[in-house]
């Protein structure tokens, strides 16, 4: 039941975030007398990632946990190829295996908020198809979480490193910054004196907001 509550809350956050992003895009492109299609500096995206985290601490076993992250992002691309990115989403990890002395790390889930920046590399043209756009992002995140199946609430910060490759296909989706992408996020979580390093793989889709001028 708590899983559903947290999921529903995270989903509502994502929906609200997308609505805000759409409004922001619309505002950036209010129509004028001579209509012209413009590409705004804003894009929205949705990513689903899988993680395999390793948790460790002094005097504690090192154990791994599988996780899932569903994230909605709003990204502002500056003229100097430096994106500024906000993320909100659901994150959840299963409990770890059990060590030989009977220890385990608890499952948890929660809502994650992140602020990232980085660098958009020059796009690589792919003849006849479109462009491959590489980016490297880094930043910080905070997560409000609960230990699954308990009434225990907690929160933790983390740092995030996220290389990303987006494929913008010619003539599809209408923009050179729109398309599917693959990402390899790695998150280092600081959890009550313990550390969890969570490398993952994510797939997503980004839409560059188009306005009419």
């Amino acid at each position, binding site marked *: 039941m*708590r899983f559903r*509550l*947290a999921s529903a*809350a995270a989903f509502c956050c994502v929906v609200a975030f997308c609505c805000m992003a759409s409004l922001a895009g619309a505002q950036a492109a209010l129509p004028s007398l001579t209509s012209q299609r413009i590409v705004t500096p804003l894009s929205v995206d949705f990513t689903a990632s*899988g993680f*395999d985290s390793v*948790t460790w*601490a*002094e*005097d*504690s076993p090192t*154990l*791994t*946990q*599988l996780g899932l992250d569903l994230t909605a992002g709003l990204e502002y691309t500056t003229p100097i190829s430096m994106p500024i990115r906000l993320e909100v989403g659901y994150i959840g990890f299963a*409990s*770890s*295996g*059990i*060590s*030989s*002395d*009977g*220890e*385990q*790390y*608890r499952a948890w889930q*929660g*809502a994650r908020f992140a602020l990232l920046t980085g660098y958009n590399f020059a796009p*690589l043209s*792919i*003849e*006849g*198809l*479109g462009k*491959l756009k590489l980016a490297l992002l880094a930043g910080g995140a*905070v997560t409000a*979480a*609960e*230990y699954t*199946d*308990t*009434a*225990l*609430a*907690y*929160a*933790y*910060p983390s740092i995030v490193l996220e290389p990303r*490759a987006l*494929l913008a296909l010619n003539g599809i989706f209408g923009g050179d910054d729109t398309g599917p992408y*693959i990402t*390899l996020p790695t998150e280092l979580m*600081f*959890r*009550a*004196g*313990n550390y969890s390093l969570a*490398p993952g*793989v994510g797939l997503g889709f980004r839409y560059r907001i188009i306005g009419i001028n």
Partner: protein
Amino acid sequence: MRVGKTIDSSLGLAAVILAAGLVFTSCTQNASSITSPRYALVYGIKNYLADPLTYTVADAQSIESVLESKGVPSVNMIEREDSAVTKAQIKADILSLSSVSSDSTVIVYYSGHGSYVDASWGSYYPTYSGAYIAPYDAVSSSGLTGSTISNLISPSEFESWISQMGTKNVIVIFDSCYSGGFIPSTSSIDASPSDYSSMQSYSAFSTAMSNFGSLLVANASASGEKTPIVLSACGSNEESYDGTTAMGHGVFTYYLLKAATNGDSNGDGYVTMTEAYAYTAQCIKTWGASLTSSDEYVAFLPHLSGGIRDLVLFTN
């Protein structure tokens, strides 16, 4: 085509990384079985000189039996009842485990009276405040008196004894009134109400959101040092329920005993403290809801200490 190779390579690399991770996780998670020693101290007090209880000794006997069949050798178990459960004896039992190996697990179970000394008692017993457990010698034929109150065991006393054990893998289970007072403060907030009148805040996720800042501060100041994992029958301001004839046990212990066989929610062969808590809490919710349409039964919901760590309570 270049693009095909690029995309294929990226996806291939991602698939390899994910597969490697899954294999690593799978190996890590399935490789372990519990090989470290396990010990248990089990106490039940029914025949107090005043205010006797009904099912507490039965609770202790059944817990002993279940633990013996679920991973604790009888040679590593101490079970005491009634007049044998004095403050000095509990302390001696705990300190007798000061030389166990650091990878051992120690389970301490207590079923008996608990007491809460508040400000209204202050003028009589100014040095006492908060939740206590009441060993046999804390209760005279006149009840809790000035000559016996020093035999109450406070959370800080108990914690200081526990800290002298040779291991940090300590499980504490109290089926007694106000036992939530023995849950150590950690970087987590227990969203279960310590008093059912405040139950409107009963949601861990909303509690996390509404206390985001303070929880981040608590997280930052946490040392990561291992603390006992405590499961209590009720909150620090609530009374536990001694049970019904049909149960033959206190309500909390009745369902905890069932968790030993039914509580392994992920089917890995172990019932952890979190699983035992979740199963017991769910059963008590169902039981409570069948008795009354009000929410008063939440006073009998168990409480669990926080932290990222969990320990196995029952092995199968």
